[in-house]
Structure formats: structure tokens, C-alpha cells
């Protein structure tokens, strides 16, 4: 009985879908548009977050100490810095470690290795590698370091070069989040309204049929389900089309949002999110379709 109802109502929903060609096209395109906008926002914020994380992992403040500074002094500095609540980690990189890292970074470049071996003493400086909990705090930490009691021993603070990148990412993420929430709400509402109206029109087209169904004793579910299935079909179609359009569009617009130099970095990563985004779209699309259908059919089922 349940199986019969579902198979029959699914069939008639499918029929509704292809027999009302132009209305179906209208409903699918508006749903596609809504999904597309929603998922572009999702992708952008995912990729901006990814990019930020990537850069955050790379960036740090390197405080280089003058060659003659004793290790104990550096360790004092380290424990001092660790007390700042903004600091996530502060790694000590000794001269020896700096040298071995330098060597391993330059394997395959014998002339460089030869050059460094030619020098008797280790030419590299010991350093403390500071990472902040939040990228906005590097400014603060850098200032604190520069004004600390140890400034006599500090050879240089390597930080300025990242500042622009960090600032850029921070503002981008903030903009994406703010406009994202706004656009998300707006377009969800528009999509519900339009799908609701389109489905209401198709239901209006089926007025006599619904009347006859009720006349011959169809249960409310039997009247309702074809339109619910129609909504699901709208949603699935819209999700697939939106998915096909999504990646070219993202490729097109990311340079304008995050700056062209980081595009490759960002786009490499969100391929992983394909399935997640697709599932989100299907769920959102069918939900929009089904909710609109249920709203539109309600007044036909009163008595």
C-alpha cells in the first residue's frame, strides 16, 4: 500500500515535471541561481579560510639574536614571550639546527653547501620562532618584542613582509562572512518565494485533477506527494546544474576577491570539498522545493 502510493505519486510527480516544461524550467533555473549564489558564498569562505590557514601556518615572527648572545639569555626571552597570552608557540632554533635545516633545504645545490662549509664558523644566527594564536595579533607581538628588555640582543625581527598578506586575508574573510550571511538569507528567501509561486502555478494548473482526486476519495498524502516529488526533482536538477556551473564561476571570481597571487593556492584545496558542497546543494535544493510545495498545496487540502 505504501509502496504503491509512493510509486504512483512519484510517477505522477515525474509526469508533472516534464509535462509542464516551461514552468519546470523556470522553477529549476531560479533554484539553480539561488543554490549557485549560496554555494559560491560557501566556497569562497571555505577557500579564504583555507588560504588563511595556509598562510597562518607559514607565517611567524622570527626573532634573530646577535651571534654572541648566550643560549640561556635566549631561553629567558623565550619563557618571557611564552607568557603573552596571544602567543601560541615559541620555538628555539639553535645555530646548529639552523645550519642543518639550511643544509637540508639546499640539498642538490652543491655550490651553496660548499660555500657554507667553506666558512669555519657557523654563519647562521640562533632564533626564536613565534606563532600567534590569531593572525591579527602579530602586530602586537612584534611591537612587544621590539620594545622588550632583550632588544639589545636582538639582531632583527623578521615580520614586516607578511603584514600586507595577513591584513588582506583578514579583511577578505570578514567581508565574505558579512556579505555571505546577508546574501545567503536574501537569496534563500527569494528562492523560496519564487519556487513557491511556480509550484503554486503548477498546482493551479492541476486544480481539476486535485478536485477529482478528492472526489474519488484520494487521501491527502496521495494528493500531496506528487507535488513533493516534483519539488524534489526541481531540487536535484538545480543542484546538478549549480554544481556544473560552480567551479568555472569560482575560478572566474576568486582573483577579484583574494588577489590573483593566491588563487592557485586556494583552488588547489577545495576539490576536496566537492562532495560536501554537492550534498549540501542537493539537501538545500530539495528542501527548498519540498517546503515550497507543501506551502502551496496546503490550501487545497483543507476539507
Amino acid at each position, binding site marked *: 500500500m505504501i509502496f504503491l502510493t509512493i510509486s504512483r505519486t512519484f510517477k505522477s510527480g515525474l509526469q508533472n515535471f516534464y*509535462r509542464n516544461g516551461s514552468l519546470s524550467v523556470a522553477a529549476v533555473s531560479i533554484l539553480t541561481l539561488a543554490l549557485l549564489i549560496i554555494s559560491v558564498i560557501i566556497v569562497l569562505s571555505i577557500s579564504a579560510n583555507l588560504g588563511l590557514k595556509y598562510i597562518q601556518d607559514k607565517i611567524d615572527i622570527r626573532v634573530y639574536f646577535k651571534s654572541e648572545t648566550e643560549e640561556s639569555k635566549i631561553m629567558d626571552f623565550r619563557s618571557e614571550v611564552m607568557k603573552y597570552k596571544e602567543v601560541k608557540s615559541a620555538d628555539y632554533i639553535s645555530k646548529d639546527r639552523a645550519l642543518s635545516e639550511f643544509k637540508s633545504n639546499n640539498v642538490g645545490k652543491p655550490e651553496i653547501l660548499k660555500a657554507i662549509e667553506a666558512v669555519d664558523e657557523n654563519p647562521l644566527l640562533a632564533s626564536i620562532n613565534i606563532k600567534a594564536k590569531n593572525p591579527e595579533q602579530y602586530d602586537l607581538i612584534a611591537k612587544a618584542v621590539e620594545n622588550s628588555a632583550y632588544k639589545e640582543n636582538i639582531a632583527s625581527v623578521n615580520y614586516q613582509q607578511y603584514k600586507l598578506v595577513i591584513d588582506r586575508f583578514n579583511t577578505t574573510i570578514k567581508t565574505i562572512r558579512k556579505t555571505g550571511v546577508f546574501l545567503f538569507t536574501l537569496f534563500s528567501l527569494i528562492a523560496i518565494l519564487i519556487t513557491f509561486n511556480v509550484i503554486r502555478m503548477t498546482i493551479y494548473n492541476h486544480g*481539476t485533477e486535485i478536485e477529482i482526486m478528492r472526489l474519488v476519495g484520494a487521501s491527502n498524502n496521495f494528493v500531496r506527494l506528487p507535488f513533493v516529488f516534483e519539488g524534489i526533482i526541481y531540487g536535484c536538477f538545480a543542484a546538478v546544474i549549480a554544481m556544473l556551473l560552480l567551479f568555472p564561476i569560482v575560478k572566474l571570481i576568486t582573483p577579484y576577491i583574494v588577489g590573483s597571487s593566491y588563487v592557485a593556492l586556494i583552488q588547489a584545496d577545495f576539490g576536496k570539498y566537492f562532495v560536501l558542497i554537492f550534498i549540501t546543494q542537493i539537501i538545500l535544493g530539495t528542501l527548498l522545493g519540498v517546503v515550497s510545495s507543501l506551502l502551496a498545496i496546503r490550501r487545497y487540502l483543507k*476539507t
Partner: protein
Amino acid sequence: MITFRNIKKIYTGGMNTVALDDVTFEIAKGEFVSIVGHSGAGKSTLLKLITAEEKPTSGEIFFNGEDIIKLAPKQLPYHRRRIGTIFQDFKLLPKKTVYENVAFALEVSGCLNKEIEKSVPQILEIVGLSNKIESYPSEISGGEQQRTAIARALVHRPALIIADEPTGNLDPISAWGIIQLLLKINKLGTTVLLATHVKDIVNNIKRRVITLDQGRIIRDHSKGRYAI
């Protein structure tokens, strides 16, 4: 089978229209009852109360001893499957064939395909449409369309057939054919309730006639004539 007790129906809206006023009657199983009256006398309202499309303002309605005013919305479809309804405008689905139109009534109530394939040809045989099963409503005459509607009403094997002006769109000969068919169905044991304002038909049937005027029953004769 049907009992109306002190039924009053007032349509509230711009102005209050009294459609039925203190209507009381009873219809026994197997009867053939004509309900006559001018337009607006309350015939359609009375029929809609039986199918529970409308609820009365006050009074009681029993169908096979069951108080249908108290039916939950979920039970209404099952109530309606016990009643076959026929209208002046046939209400057939234009994109379905005669066979599909009749089968539709069984499909929506969850009958198995096997039963549908067995019942539909039988019913179409009874109404005399065996040779038109593959035709669409637009390809057959008005009388044949109404026969299709009757077949659809009968396919649930209902206890009651309600015919609301079934001959309104038909020429006299087709109309008489439809009435003959209704009489035949009645003979097979189904109660028939016929609303009409065609004098000749009522006078020829020579069955019970209930006459409505301005929402009241003004006459109820067991071998009635059309007289208003």
C-alpha cells in the same frame, strides 16, 4: 442509510445566506430519490453535506448510522469512497483515456494493479463503453463522457451514487440514456440520489421526489411528480 436531522446551513460571508433551513429526511438503502428545486434552492448544498465537503451550521447527519459531521479529516477520503459522485460537467481528466479515467479512482485509493485490471473493464461493460476504452474524453460524445464519469463513480462499488444535474449538458436522448443507466444501477442495489430540475425526467421515473424551495423541504412524495 442517510438521515438528516434539523439541518441548517448558513453561508457566512458578505451577507449571511441561508442555504438549508431545518431540513429533516431519511433515505433508505436501495431507494432512488430525486431532489428537485430551482437554482439556489439548496440542492447542491444538500449533496455536499453528504460527501462532507461542507459542514452544517447545526443539526445531525448520519450515513449508515455514522455521524459524518464528527469524521476526522483523515477519515474523509474513506467516507468519500463509499459514495460515487457524478456532475453536470463530468469532471473527467482530459489527458487520460476512458480506461485511465476510471482506473484513476482505484489508483488513488491504493488498489492493486491486478484488481484495477479486473474491475475497470467490468464496470465499462456495465455502462456500455467497452468499445471506447482507448478514447480520450474529447473524442467521445457528451453522453459517453457522462457514462465514463458514472463508471468512475461505480468502480469503488459504492453504497450510494450522487448525481448532481447529470443531464444538464446533454441532449434529451442522451439524457434519458443516463437516467436509464442510473435506474439500472439502482436495480442492482445501489442507492441513487439525483438532483435535477428537468421536469420530464422526474415525471417519467415515478420514484420518490423531495422538493426544496429556499432551503426548506416543501414536498416529499414517494411516487412524486415535478411540481413547483
